[in-house]
Protein backbone atom coordinates (compact mmCIF):
# COMPACT_ATOMS: atom_id res chain seq x y z
CA UNK A 1 0.00 0.00 0.00
CA UNK A 2 2.73 2.37 1.05
CA UNK A 3 4.93 1.30 -1.82
CA UNK A 4 2.12 1.81 -4.31
CA UNK A 5 1.48 5.26 -2.90
CA UNK A 6 5.19 6.01 -3.18
CA UNK A 7 5.36 4.89 -6.80
CA UNK A 8 2.32 6.94 -7.78
CA UNK A 9 3.86 9.96 -6.10
CA UNK A 10 7.11 9.36 -7.93
CA UNK A 11 5.29 9.28 -11.25
CA UNK A 12 3.35 12.52 -10.63
CA UNK A 13 6.64 14.04 -9.50
CA UNK A 14 8.24 13.20 -12.82
CA UNK A 15 5.25 14.66 -14.68
CA UNK A 16 5.40 17.86 -12.63
CA UNK A 17 9.12 18.24 -13.29
CA UNK A 18 8.64 17.65 -17.00
CA UNK A 19 5.88 20.29 -16.97
CA UNK A 20 8.18 22.75 -15.23
CA UNK A 21 10.94 22.05 -17.74
CA UNK A 22 8.55 22.68 -20.65
CA UNK A 23 7.16 25.89 -19.15
CA UNK A 24 10.59 27.36 -18.39
CA UNK A 25 11.88 26.41 -21.77
CA UNK A 26 8.93 27.94 -23.61
CA UNK A 27 8.91 31.09 -21.46
CA UNK A 28 12.61 31.69 -22.01
CA UNK A 29 12.61 30.98 -25.74
CA UNK A 30 9.91 33.52 -26.47
CA UNK A 31 12.08 36.12 -24.79
CA UNK A 32 13.07 38.98 -27.02
CA UNK A 33 16.69 39.94 -26.87
CA UNK A 34 19.65 37.89 -28.02
CA UNK A 35 21.84 36.51 -25.24
CA UNK A 36 24.66 35.94 -27.72
CA UNK A 37 24.71 39.60 -28.67
CA UNK A 38 25.30 40.47 -25.04
CA UNK A 39 28.39 38.24 -24.76
CA UNK A 40 30.28 39.51 -27.74
CA UNK A 41 32.14 42.78 -27.99
CA UNK A 42 30.65 45.28 -30.44
CA UNK A 43 32.00 44.76 -33.92
CA UNK A 44 32.06 40.95 -33.73
CA UNK A 45 31.75 39.39 -37.15
CA UNK A 46 28.65 37.52 -38.29
CA UNK A 47 30.71 34.36 -38.46
CA UNK A 48 31.65 34.75 -34.80
CA UNK A 49 28.01 35.19 -33.85
CA UNK A 50 26.98 32.15 -35.88
CA UNK A 51 29.74 30.04 -34.34
CA UNK A 52 28.70 31.01 -30.83
CA UNK A 53 25.03 30.39 -31.59
CA UNK A 54 25.93 26.94 -32.84
CA UNK A 55 28.05 26.31 -29.74
CA UNK A 56 25.09 27.01 -27.45
CA UNK A 57 22.69 25.16 -29.77
CA UNK A 58 20.69 28.31 -30.45
CA UNK A 59 20.66 27.73 -34.21
CA UNK A 60 18.29 24.75 -33.95
CA UNK A 61 14.49 24.80 -33.70
CA UNK A 62 12.91 25.25 -30.27
CA UNK A 63 11.68 21.65 -30.14
CA UNK A 64 15.12 20.34 -31.08
CA UNK A 65 16.73 22.60 -28.51
CA UNK A 66 14.34 21.32 -25.85
CA UNK A 67 15.11 17.66 -26.47
CA UNK A 68 18.85 18.26 -26.71
CA UNK A 69 18.67 20.10 -23.41
CA UNK A 70 16.41 17.45 -21.81
CA UNK A 71 18.60 14.54 -22.85
CA UNK A 72 21.56 16.43 -21.40
CA UNK A 73 19.70 17.06 -18.15
CA UNK A 74 18.88 13.37 -17.80
CA UNK A 75 22.58 12.60 -18.19
CA UNK A 76 23.38 15.29 -15.60
CA UNK A 77 24.57 17.84 -18.15
CA UNK A 78 22.72 21.14 -17.67
CA UNK A 79 24.80 23.00 -20.24
CA UNK A 80 27.17 25.94 -19.90
CA UNK A 81 26.30 29.25 -18.31
CA UNK A 82 26.41 32.03 -20.89
CA UNK A 83 27.35 34.87 -18.53
CA UNK A 84 29.75 32.97 -16.25
CA UNK A 85 31.01 30.50 -18.91
CA UNK A 86 31.05 27.62 -16.48
CA UNK A 87 29.23 24.34 -16.13
CA UNK A 88 25.68 25.06 -14.90
CA UNK A 89 25.49 22.04 -12.61
CA UNK A 90 28.78 23.01 -10.98
CA UNK A 91 27.57 26.57 -10.42
CA UNK A 92 24.29 25.34 -8.96
CA UNK A 93 25.98 22.85 -6.63
CA UNK A 94 28.35 25.57 -5.55
CA UNK A 95 25.48 27.81 -4.43
CA UNK A 96 22.85 25.28 -3.35
CA UNK A 97 24.46 24.46 0.04
CA UNK A 98 24.24 28.11 1.12
CA UNK A 99 20.52 28.17 0.35
CA UNK A 100 19.92 24.78 1.97
CA UNK A 101 21.72 25.82 5.15
CA UNK A 102 19.65 28.98 5.29
CA UNK A 103 16.42 27.03 4.74
CA UNK A 104 17.25 24.48 7.43
CA UNK A 105 18.15 27.17 9.97
CA UNK A 106 14.86 28.91 9.10
CA UNK A 107 12.88 25.70 9.55
CA UNK A 108 14.46 24.94 12.93
CA UNK A 109 13.92 28.52 14.04
CA UNK A 110 10.29 28.51 12.91
CA UNK A 111 9.61 25.18 14.62
CA UNK A 112 11.19 26.43 17.84
CA UNK A 113 9.33 29.76 17.89
CA UNK A 114 6.06 28.36 16.56
CA UNK A 115 6.14 25.29 18.78
CA UNK A 116 6.93 27.22 21.97
CA UNK A 117 4.28 29.87 21.41
CA UNK A 118 1.71 27.21 20.47
CA UNK A 119 2.35 25.22 23.65
CA UNK A 120 2.36 28.37 25.74
CA UNK A 121 -0.83 29.61 24.11
CA UNK A 122 -2.57 26.26 24.58
CA UNK A 123 -1.54 26.10 28.24
CA UNK A 124 -2.70 29.66 28.90
CA UNK A 125 -5.81 29.35 26.71
CA UNK A 126 -8.44 31.98 27.27
CA UNK A 127 -6.02 34.37 28.99
CA UNK A 128 -4.30 37.57 27.93
CA UNK A 129 -1.21 35.52 27.12
CA UNK A 130 -3.08 33.63 24.43
CA UNK A 131 -4.56 36.85 23.07
CA UNK A 132 -1.07 38.35 22.92
CA UNK A 133 0.26 35.34 21.03
CA UNK A 134 -2.67 35.57 18.60
CA UNK A 135 -1.96 39.22 17.87
CA UNK A 136 1.77 38.61 17.45
CA UNK A 137 1.28 35.66 15.12
CA UNK A 138 -1.36 37.56 13.16
CA UNK A 139 1.09 40.42 12.60
CA UNK A 140 3.98 38.09 11.77
CA UNK A 141 1.83 36.35 9.22
CA UNK A 142 0.38 39.41 7.49
CA UNK A 143 3.73 41.00 6.77
CA UNK A 144 5.69 39.24 4.00
CA UNK A 145 9.30 38.14 4.48
CA UNK A 146 10.64 40.85 2.15
CA UNK A 147 9.26 43.56 4.44
CA UNK A 148 10.42 41.75 7.59
CA UNK A 149 13.88 41.69 6.06
CA UNK A 150 13.83 45.46 5.58
CA UNK A 151 12.49 46.02 9.11
CA UNK A 152 15.30 43.87 10.52
CA UNK A 153 17.93 45.72 8.47
CA UNK A 154 16.69 48.98 9.95
CA UNK A 155 16.54 47.66 13.50
CA UNK A 156 19.73 45.59 13.76
CA UNK A 157 21.80 46.97 10.90
CA UNK A 158 21.24 50.68 11.43
CA UNK A 159 19.46 51.55 14.68
CA UNK A 160 21.42 49.06 16.81
CA UNK A 161 24.14 47.91 14.40
CA UNK A 162 24.96 44.53 15.91
CA UNK A 163 24.45 42.26 12.89
CA UNK A 164 25.90 42.11 9.39
CA UNK A 165 23.47 43.22 6.74
CA UNK A 166 25.15 41.64 3.75
CA UNK A 167 27.07 38.59 2.65
CA UNK A 168 27.36 35.06 3.99
CA UNK A 169 30.63 35.36 5.87
CA UNK A 170 33.06 38.18 6.66
CA UNK A 171 35.35 38.49 3.62
CA UNK A 172 38.56 38.97 5.63
CA UNK A 173 38.23 35.57 7.29
CA UNK A 174 40.42 32.67 6.18
CA UNK A 175 38.12 29.79 5.38
CA UNK A 176 39.41 26.23 5.78
CA UNK A 177 36.30 24.68 4.24
CA UNK A 178 36.39 22.01 1.56
CA UNK A 179 32.60 21.85 1.02
CA UNK A 180 30.13 24.68 0.54
CA UNK A 181 28.23 23.68 3.69
CA UNK A 182 30.10 26.33 5.68
CA UNK A 183 27.89 26.28 8.76
CA UNK A 184 27.85 22.52 9.02
CA UNK A 185 31.57 22.25 8.38
CA UNK A 186 32.44 24.93 10.90
CA UNK A 187 30.57 22.88 13.52
CA UNK A 188 32.28 19.65 12.53
CA UNK A 189 35.71 21.30 12.58
CA UNK A 190 34.90 22.86 15.97
CA UNK A 191 35.72 26.29 14.52
CA UNK A 192 33.06 28.05 16.55
CA UNK A 193 34.53 31.47 15.75
CA UNK A 194 33.52 30.84 12.14
CA UNK A 195 30.14 29.43 13.23
CA UNK A 196 29.51 32.65 15.09
CA UNK A 197 30.42 34.77 12.08
CA UNK A 198 28.26 32.66 9.75
CA UNK A 199 25.29 32.80 12.10
CA UNK A 200 25.77 36.54 12.52
CA UNK A 201 25.30 36.91 8.77
CA UNK A 202 22.51 34.39 8.58
CA UNK A 203 20.44 35.56 11.53
CA UNK A 204 18.52 38.42 9.90
CA UNK A 205 17.64 36.69 6.61
CA UNK A 206 16.69 33.61 8.63
CA UNK A 207 14.44 35.52 11.02
CA UNK A 208 12.78 37.36 8.13
CA UNK A 209 11.90 34.04 6.52
CA UNK A 210 11.10 32.28 9.79
CA UNK A 211 8.61 34.78 11.23
CA UNK A 212 5.68 34.12 8.86
CA UNK A 213 6.36 30.36 8.99
CA UNK A 214 6.55 30.37 12.78
CA UNK A 215 3.24 32.20 12.91
CA UNK A 216 1.50 29.59 10.78
CA UNK A 217 2.95 26.73 12.83
CA UNK A 218 1.96 28.47 16.03
CA UNK A 219 -1.63 29.09 14.94
CA UNK A 220 -2.30 25.62 13.61
CA UNK A 221 -0.52 23.71 16.37
CA UNK A 222 -2.27 25.74 19.06
CA UNK A 223 -5.63 25.06 17.45
CA UNK A 224 -4.99 21.29 17.25
CA UNK A 225 -3.60 21.24 20.79
CA UNK A 226 -6.71 22.93 22.12
CA UNK A 227 -8.89 20.41 20.36
CA UNK A 228 -6.87 17.46 21.66
CA UNK A 229 -6.79 18.86 25.20
CA UNK A 230 -10.53 18.33 25.55
CA UNK A 231 -10.37 14.65 24.63
CA UNK A 232 -11.02 11.98 27.25
CA UNK A 233 -7.54 10.51 27.38
CA UNK A 234 -6.04 13.90 28.06
CA UNK A 235 -8.61 14.57 30.75
CA UNK A 236 -7.61 11.23 32.26
CA UNK A 237 -3.96 12.24 32.29
CA UNK A 238 -4.93 15.44 34.04
CA UNK A 239 -6.94 13.48 36.63
CA UNK A 240 -3.85 11.32 37.20
CA UNK A 241 -2.16 14.44 38.47
CA UNK A 242 0.03 15.53 35.57
CA UNK A 243 0.57 19.27 35.33
CA UNK A 244 -0.86 21.08 32.30
CA UNK A 245 2.58 21.43 30.70
CA UNK A 246 3.25 17.72 31.22
CA UNK A 247 -0.15 16.86 29.76
CA UNK A 248 0.61 18.92 26.67
CA UNK A 249 4.14 17.63 26.17
CA UNK A 250 3.51 13.96 26.99
CA UNK A 251 0.00 13.35 25.73
CA UNK A 252 -1.40 16.04 23.50
CA UNK A 253 1.58 17.09 21.35
CA UNK A 254 2.02 13.71 19.70
CA UNK A 255 -1.52 13.69 18.36
CA UNK A 256 -1.76 17.36 17.57
CA UNK A 257 1.48 17.40 15.57
CA UNK A 258 0.22 15.47 12.55
CA UNK A 259 -1.88 18.17 10.84
CA UNK A 260 0.88 20.67 11.54
CA UNK A 261 3.44 18.43 9.87
CA UNK A 262 1.63 18.48 6.53
CA UNK A 263 1.32 22.22 6.67
CA UNK A 264 4.98 22.70 7.60
CA UNK A 265 5.88 20.72 4.50
CA UNK A 266 3.78 22.88 2.21
CA UNK A 267 5.04 26.06 3.83
CA UNK A 268 8.62 24.87 3.65
CA UNK A 269 8.34 24.74 -0.13
CA UNK A 270 7.08 28.35 -0.13
CA UNK A 271 10.02 29.21 2.06
CA UNK A 272 12.49 27.80 -0.47
CA UNK A 273 10.91 30.16 -2.99
CA UNK A 274 11.08 33.05 -0.52
CA UNK A 275 14.85 32.68 -0.20
CA UNK A 276 15.21 34.20 -3.68
CA UNK A 277 14.42 37.78 -2.72
CA UNK A 278 15.71 37.51 0.86
CA UNK A 279 19.10 36.37 -0.40
CA UNK A 280 19.10 39.33 -2.76
CA UNK A 281 18.14 41.74 0.01
CA UNK A 282 20.98 40.58 2.26
CA UNK A 283 23.48 39.90 -0.59
CA UNK A 284 23.63 36.31 0.68
CA UNK A 285 25.52 34.20 -1.85
CA UNK A 286 22.94 31.49 -2.41
CA UNK A 287 21.10 30.01 -5.34
CA UNK A 288 18.32 32.63 -5.32
CA UNK A 289 20.73 35.53 -5.58
CA UNK A 290 22.45 33.84 -8.49
CA UNK A 291 19.05 33.22 -10.10
CA UNK A 292 18.23 36.93 -10.16
CA UNK A 293 21.61 37.71 -11.74
CA UNK A 294 21.00 34.96 -14.28
CA UNK A 295 17.63 36.47 -15.24
CA UNK A 296 19.07 39.97 -15.51
CA UNK A 297 21.93 38.65 -17.70
CA UNK A 298 19.52 36.51 -19.78
CA UNK A 299 21.65 33.50 -19.01
CA UNK A 300 19.25 30.89 -20.42
CA UNK A 301 21.05 27.65 -19.46
CA UNK A 302 21.68 28.91 -15.94
CA UNK A 303 18.06 30.05 -15.44
CA UNK A 304 16.77 26.70 -16.66
CA UNK A 305 19.12 24.81 -14.37
CA UNK A 306 18.28 26.87 -11.29
CA UNK A 307 14.51 26.77 -11.83
CA UNK A 308 14.65 23.03 -12.36
CA UNK A 309 16.66 22.57 -9.17
CA UNK A 310 14.13 24.68 -7.26
CA UNK A 311 11.30 22.61 -8.71
CA UNK A 312 13.14 19.41 -7.80
CA UNK A 313 13.49 20.62 -4.22
CA UNK A 314 9.78 21.45 -4.22
CA UNK A 315 8.65 17.98 -5.31
CA UNK A 316 11.19 16.23 -3.07
CA UNK A 317 9.96 18.09 0.00
CA UNK A 318 6.37 17.29 -0.93
CA UNK A 319 7.27 13.65 -1.38
CA UNK A 320 9.08 13.51 1.97
CA UNK A 321 6.16 15.13 3.77
CA UNK A 322 3.70 12.81 2.11
CA UNK A 323 5.70 9.75 3.07
CA UNK A 324 6.25 10.96 6.62
CA UNK A 325 2.55 11.58 6.94
CA UNK A 326 1.78 8.09 5.68
CA UNK A 327 4.29 6.57 8.10
CA UNK A 328 3.11 8.53 11.11
CA UNK A 329 -0.62 8.38 10.52
CA UNK A 330 -1.86 5.04 11.88
CA UNK A 331 -4.95 5.15 9.68
CA UNK A 332 -2.89 5.27 6.49
CA UNK A 333 -0.23 2.92 7.82
CA UNK A 334 -2.64 0.06 8.26
CA UNK A 335 -5.04 1.06 5.50
Amino acid at each position, binding site marked *: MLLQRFLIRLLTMAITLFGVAV*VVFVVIRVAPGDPIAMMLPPGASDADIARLRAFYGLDKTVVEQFFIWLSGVIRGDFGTSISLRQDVLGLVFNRLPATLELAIVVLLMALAIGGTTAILGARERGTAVEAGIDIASGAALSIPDFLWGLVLILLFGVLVPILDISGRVSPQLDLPFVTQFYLFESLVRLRFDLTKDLLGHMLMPAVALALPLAAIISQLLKQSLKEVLDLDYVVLARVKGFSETQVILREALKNAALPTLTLVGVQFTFLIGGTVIIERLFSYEGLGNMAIDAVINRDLPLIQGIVLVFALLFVLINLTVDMMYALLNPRLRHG
Partner: protein
Amino acid sequence: MDEARNSRSRISRRGSSRHGSGARLWLAGGWLLLALLAAIFAPLVAPQDPLAQDLMFERLPPFWMSGSEPGFWLGTDSLGRDLLSRLIFGARIAFIVAFAAALAACLVGSTLGLISGYFGGWADRIISRIVDVWMAFPPVLFAILLVAVLGTGLSSVIIAIAVIDWTRFCRVIRAESMGQARMDYVENARIAGYGRIGIMLREVLPNVVPSIMALLSLEMGIAVIVEAILSFVNLSISTDDPTWGGIIAEGRLSIHQAWWVLVFPLVTLILTVLSFSQFGEGLKARFDPVLR
Protein backbone atom coordinates in the same frame (compact mmCIF):
# COMPACT_ATOMS: atom_id res chain seq x y z
CA MET B 1 -20.73 15.95 23.98
CA ASP B 2 -18.38 16.28 21.08
CA GLU B 3 -21.08 17.88 19.02
CA ALA B 4 -21.93 20.32 21.75
CA ARG B 5 -18.33 21.39 22.15
CA ASN B 6 -17.82 21.79 18.46
CA SER B 7 -20.85 23.95 18.02
CA ARG B 8 -19.91 25.98 21.06
CA SER B 9 -16.43 26.66 19.76
CA ARG B 10 -17.92 27.54 16.40
CA ILE B 11 -20.28 30.00 18.03
CA SER B 12 -17.52 31.62 20.02
CA ARG B 13 -15.37 31.88 16.92
CA ARG B 14 -18.25 33.39 15.03
CA GLY B 15 -18.85 35.85 17.86
CA SER B 16 -15.25 36.99 18.00
CA SER B 17 -14.87 37.45 14.25
CA ARG B 18 -18.12 39.39 14.11
CA HIS B 19 -16.97 41.52 16.95
CA GLY B 20 -13.59 42.35 15.45
CA SER B 21 -14.66 42.75 11.84
CA GLY B 22 -16.23 46.19 12.24
CA ALA B 23 -13.18 48.00 13.58
CA ARG B 24 -10.90 46.09 11.24
CA LEU B 25 -12.96 46.99 8.20
CA TRP B 26 -13.03 50.67 9.12
CA LEU B 27 -9.35 51.02 9.97
CA ALA B 28 -8.11 49.06 6.99
CA GLY B 29 -10.68 50.58 4.64
CA GLY B 30 -9.82 54.05 5.91
CA TRP B 31 -6.13 53.72 5.15
CA LEU B 32 -6.80 52.21 1.72
CA LEU B 33 -9.26 54.99 0.87
CA LEU B 34 -6.75 57.61 1.97
CA ALA B 35 -3.98 56.07 -0.10
CA LEU B 36 -6.30 55.63 -3.07
CA LEU B 37 -7.44 59.25 -2.96
CA ALA B 38 -3.82 60.39 -2.68
CA ALA B 39 -3.01 58.29 -5.73
CA ILE B 40 -5.91 59.65 -7.79
CA PHE B 41 -5.30 63.27 -6.87
CA ALA B 42 -1.52 62.96 -6.72
CA PRO B 43 -0.75 66.08 -8.77
CA LEU B 44 -2.99 68.13 -6.46
CA VAL B 45 -1.88 66.79 -3.09
CA ALA B 46 1.83 66.22 -3.66
CA PRO B 47 3.69 69.22 -2.24
CA GLN B 48 6.54 69.00 -4.78
CA ASP B 49 7.30 67.63 -8.21
CA PRO B 50 8.32 64.01 -7.47
CA LEU B 51 10.97 64.06 -10.19
CA ALA B 52 12.50 67.45 -9.45
CA GLN B 53 16.11 67.01 -8.38
CA ASP B 54 17.81 69.66 -6.34
CA LEU B 55 21.33 69.02 -5.23
CA MET B 56 21.07 71.90 -2.74
CA PHE B 57 18.45 69.88 -0.88
CA GLU B 58 19.88 66.39 -0.98
CA ARG B 59 19.18 64.06 1.97
CA LEU B 60 17.10 66.53 3.95
CA PRO B 61 15.73 64.91 7.12
CA PRO B 62 11.99 64.78 7.95
CA PHE B 63 10.27 67.89 9.32
CA TRP B 64 10.80 67.32 13.03
CA MET B 65 14.58 67.02 12.78
CA SER B 66 17.03 69.87 12.67
CA GLY B 67 18.25 70.69 9.19
CA SER B 68 14.87 70.05 7.57
CA GLU B 69 13.39 72.48 5.07
CA PRO B 70 9.74 73.61 5.01
CA GLY B 71 7.78 71.97 2.21
CA PHE B 72 9.78 68.74 2.37
CA TRP B 73 7.73 67.02 5.09
CA LEU B 74 9.34 63.60 4.99
CA GLY B 75 12.74 64.79 3.81
CA THR B 76 14.47 64.16 0.50
CA ASP B 77 16.51 61.37 -1.08
CA SER B 78 20.12 61.47 -2.28
CA LEU B 79 19.13 63.41 -5.41
CA GLY B 80 17.16 65.98 -3.44
CA ARG B 81 13.75 64.69 -4.53
CA ASP B 82 10.84 65.14 -2.11
CA LEU B 83 10.07 61.83 -0.41
CA LEU B 84 6.40 62.51 0.40
CA SER B 85 5.64 63.48 -3.19
CA ARG B 86 7.40 60.38 -4.45
CA LEU B 87 5.39 58.19 -2.08
CA ILE B 88 2.13 59.80 -3.22
CA PHE B 89 2.95 59.32 -6.89
CA GLY B 90 4.25 55.81 -6.14
CA ALA B 91 0.78 54.98 -4.80
CA ARG B 92 -0.53 55.35 -8.36
CA ILE B 93 1.57 52.50 -9.69
CA ALA B 94 0.88 50.44 -6.57
CA PHE B 95 -2.90 50.74 -6.92
CA ILE B 96 -3.00 50.25 -10.68
CA VAL B 97 -0.96 47.06 -10.29
CA ALA B 98 -3.01 45.95 -7.28
CA PHE B 99 -6.38 46.32 -9.00
CA ALA B 100 -5.43 45.12 -12.47
CA ALA B 101 -3.26 42.17 -11.47
CA ALA B 102 -5.58 40.95 -8.73
CA LEU B 103 -8.65 41.18 -10.99
CA ALA B 104 -6.92 39.33 -13.80
CA ALA B 105 -5.63 36.60 -11.48
CA CYS B 106 -9.10 36.37 -9.91
CA LEU B 107 -10.87 36.04 -13.23
CA VAL B 108 -8.63 33.29 -14.52
CA GLY B 109 -8.21 31.45 -11.23
CA SER B 110 -11.81 31.59 -10.08
CA THR B 111 -13.16 30.45 -13.44
CA LEU B 112 -10.82 27.49 -13.60
CA GLY B 113 -11.39 26.71 -9.92
CA LEU B 114 -15.14 26.79 -10.35
CA ILE B 115 -15.00 24.49 -13.38
CA SER B 116 -12.51 22.18 -11.70
CA GLY B 117 -14.44 21.94 -8.45
CA TYR B 118 -17.95 21.74 -9.83
CA PHE B 119 -17.47 19.51 -12.86
CA GLY B 120 -14.73 17.30 -11.44
CA GLY B 121 -13.54 14.43 -13.65
CA TRP B 122 -11.13 15.16 -16.47
CA ALA B 123 -11.44 18.92 -16.24
CA ASP B 124 -10.45 18.74 -12.60
CA ARG B 125 -7.56 16.39 -13.25
CA ILE B 126 -6.05 18.55 -15.98
CA ILE B 127 -6.50 21.82 -14.13
CA SER B 128 -5.10 20.34 -10.91
CA ARG B 129 -2.03 19.07 -12.70
CA ILE B 130 -1.40 22.51 -14.21
CA VAL B 131 -1.75 24.03 -10.75
CA ASP B 132 0.79 21.48 -9.42
CA VAL B 133 3.29 22.43 -12.10
CA TRP B 134 2.72 26.13 -11.40
CA MET B 135 3.21 25.69 -7.66
CA ALA B 136 6.60 24.09 -8.25
CA PHE B 137 7.98 27.45 -9.43
CA PRO B 138 9.39 29.75 -6.78
CA PRO B 139 6.96 32.68 -7.27
CA VAL B 140 9.46 35.52 -6.94
CA LEU B 141 11.85 33.89 -9.38
CA PHE B 142 8.95 33.20 -11.74
CA ALA B 143 7.88 36.85 -11.58
CA ILE B 144 11.38 38.11 -12.28
CA LEU B 145 11.72 35.63 -15.12
CA LEU B 146 8.42 36.69 -16.68
CA VAL B 147 9.19 40.39 -16.48
CA ALA B 148 12.64 39.77 -17.94
CA VAL B 149 10.96 37.91 -20.80
CA LEU B 150 8.06 40.30 -21.36
CA GLY B 151 10.26 43.34 -20.99
CA THR B 152 9.87 45.84 -18.20
CA GLY B 153 6.78 48.00 -18.08
CA LEU B 154 3.51 48.37 -16.24
CA SER B 155 1.59 45.82 -18.31
CA SER B 156 4.38 43.24 -17.99
CA VAL B 157 4.29 43.55 -14.22
CA ILE B 158 0.52 43.13 -14.19
CA ILE B 159 0.62 40.14 -16.55
CA ALA B 160 3.44 38.50 -14.57
CA ILE B 161 1.55 38.76 -11.28
CA ALA B 162 -1.67 37.46 -12.81
CA VAL B 163 0.12 34.58 -14.53
CA ILE B 164 1.71 33.52 -11.26
CA ASP B 165 -1.05 34.07 -8.74
CA TRP B 166 -4.16 32.70 -10.46
CA THR B 167 -3.42 29.39 -8.71
CA ARG B 168 -4.23 30.96 -5.33
CA PHE B 169 -7.81 31.61 -6.50
CA CYS B 170 -8.03 28.33 -8.34
CA ARG B 171 -7.12 26.19 -5.34
CA VAL B 172 -9.47 27.89 -2.88
CA ILE B 173 -12.44 28.21 -5.23
CA ARG B 174 -11.98 24.63 -6.41
CA ALA B 175 -12.16 23.31 -2.86
CA GLU B 176 -15.15 25.51 -2.02
CA SER B 177 -17.17 24.74 -5.12
CA MET B 178 -16.42 21.06 -4.63
CA GLY B 179 -18.05 21.31 -1.22
CA GLN B 180 -20.95 23.33 -2.63
CA ALA B 181 -21.49 20.83 -5.46
CA ARG B 182 -22.34 18.14 -2.90
CA MET B 183 -24.96 20.28 -1.15
CA ASP B 184 -28.65 19.43 -1.31
CA TYR B 185 -29.58 22.67 -2.99
CA VAL B 186 -27.47 21.79 -6.01
CA GLU B 187 -29.26 18.46 -6.28
CA ASN B 188 -32.59 20.27 -5.93
CA ALA B 189 -31.67 22.67 -8.70
CA ARG B 190 -30.81 19.74 -10.91
CA ILE B 191 -34.15 18.10 -10.19
CA ALA B 192 -35.82 21.43 -10.93
CA GLY B 193 -34.35 21.11 -14.40
CA TYR B 194 -31.46 23.58 -14.42
CA GLY B 195 -28.52 22.78 -16.68
CA ARG B 196 -25.06 22.20 -15.17
CA ILE B 197 -23.58 25.50 -16.30
CA GLY B 198 -26.71 27.27 -15.08
CA ILE B 199 -26.34 25.68 -11.65
CA MET B 200 -22.67 26.50 -11.55
CA LEU B 201 -23.25 30.17 -12.29
CA ARG B 202 -26.55 30.74 -10.49
CA GLU B 203 -26.22 28.50 -7.45
CA VAL B 204 -22.59 27.64 -6.77
CA LEU B 205 -20.92 30.91 -7.77
CA PRO B 206 -22.88 33.19 -5.39
CA ASN B 207 -21.89 30.93 -2.52
CA VAL B 208 -18.19 31.23 -3.19
CA VAL B 209 -18.28 35.00 -3.76
CA PRO B 210 -17.37 35.87 -0.13
CA SER B 211 -14.21 33.79 -0.47
CA ILE B 212 -13.44 35.38 -3.82
CA MET B 213 -13.77 38.85 -2.32
CA ALA B 214 -11.49 38.04 0.61
CA LEU B 215 -8.93 36.50 -1.72
CA LEU B 216 -9.17 39.46 -4.07
CA SER B 217 -8.34 41.89 -1.31
CA LEU B 218 -5.50 39.67 -0.08
CA GLU B 219 -4.18 39.37 -3.62
CA MET B 220 -4.13 43.14 -4.05
CA GLY B 221 -1.80 43.33 -1.06
CA ILE B 222 0.38 40.60 -2.54
CA ALA B 223 0.44 42.38 -5.92
CA VAL B 224 1.66 45.56 -4.21
CA ILE B 225 4.47 43.58 -2.59
CA VAL B 226 5.44 41.79 -5.80
CA GLU B 227 5.56 45.11 -7.65
CA ALA B 228 7.77 46.48 -4.87
CA ILE B 229 10.04 43.44 -5.12
CA LEU B 230 10.29 43.82 -8.90
CA SER B 231 11.07 47.52 -8.54
CA PHE B 232 13.60 46.61 -5.89
CA VAL B 233 15.54 44.41 -8.31
CA ASN B 234 15.08 47.14 -10.90
CA LEU B 235 12.77 45.11 -13.12
CA SER B 236 9.46 46.91 -12.76
CA ILE B 237 8.16 49.78 -14.86
CA SER B 238 11.60 51.09 -15.82
CA THR B 239 10.63 54.71 -16.24
CA ASP B 240 11.42 57.64 -14.02
CA ASP B 241 8.02 57.35 -12.33
CA PRO B 242 8.52 56.74 -8.64
CA THR B 243 7.47 53.35 -7.23
CA TRP B 244 7.45 52.25 -3.61
CA GLY B 245 9.86 49.41 -4.33
CA GLY B 246 12.16 51.73 -6.25
CA ILE B 247 12.24 54.18 -3.34
CA ILE B 248 13.02 51.27 -1.01
CA ALA B 249 15.90 50.20 -3.25
CA GLU B 250 17.31 53.75 -3.08
CA GLY B 251 16.77 53.78 0.66
CA ARG B 252 18.61 50.46 1.06
CA LEU B 253 21.65 52.01 -0.62
CA SER B 254 21.76 55.19 1.45
CA ILE B 255 20.62 53.52 4.64
CA HIS B 256 23.47 54.82 6.77
CA GLN B 257 23.17 58.40 5.50
CA ALA B 258 19.38 58.81 5.21
CA TRP B 259 17.34 56.19 7.05
CA TRP B 260 14.07 57.99 6.28
CA VAL B 261 14.28 57.12 2.59
CA LEU B 262 13.84 53.48 3.64
CA VAL B 263 11.59 53.91 6.68
CA PHE B 264 8.72 55.86 5.13
CA PRO B 265 8.11 53.68 2.06
CA LEU B 266 8.48 50.63 4.29
CA VAL B 267 5.85 51.88 6.73
CA THR B 268 3.57 52.78 3.80
CA LEU B 269 3.96 49.31 2.31
CA ILE B 270 3.36 47.53 5.60
CA LEU B 271 0.23 49.57 6.32
CA THR B 272 -1.09 48.96 2.82
CA VAL B 273 -0.44 45.23 2.84
CA LEU B 274 -1.91 44.81 6.33
CA SER B 275 -4.94 46.84 5.31
CA PHE B 276 -5.60 44.78 2.19
CA SER B 277 -5.47 41.50 4.11
CA GLN B 278 -7.50 42.80 7.06
CA PHE B 279 -10.04 44.39 4.75
CA GLY B 280 -10.48 41.06 2.99
CA GLU B 281 -10.90 39.18 6.26
CA GLY B 282 -13.37 41.78 7.48
CA LEU B 283 -15.39 41.60 4.27
CA LYS B 284 -15.50 37.84 4.46
CA ALA B 285 -16.62 37.89 8.08
CA ARG B 286 -19.34 40.36 7.21
CA PHE B 287 -20.71 38.72 4.07
CA ASP B 288 -20.09 35.03 4.55
CA PRO B 289 -23.57 33.51 4.93
CA VAL B 290 -22.24 30.76 7.22
CA LEU B 291 -20.47 33.14 9.54
CA ARG B 292 -23.36 35.56 9.46
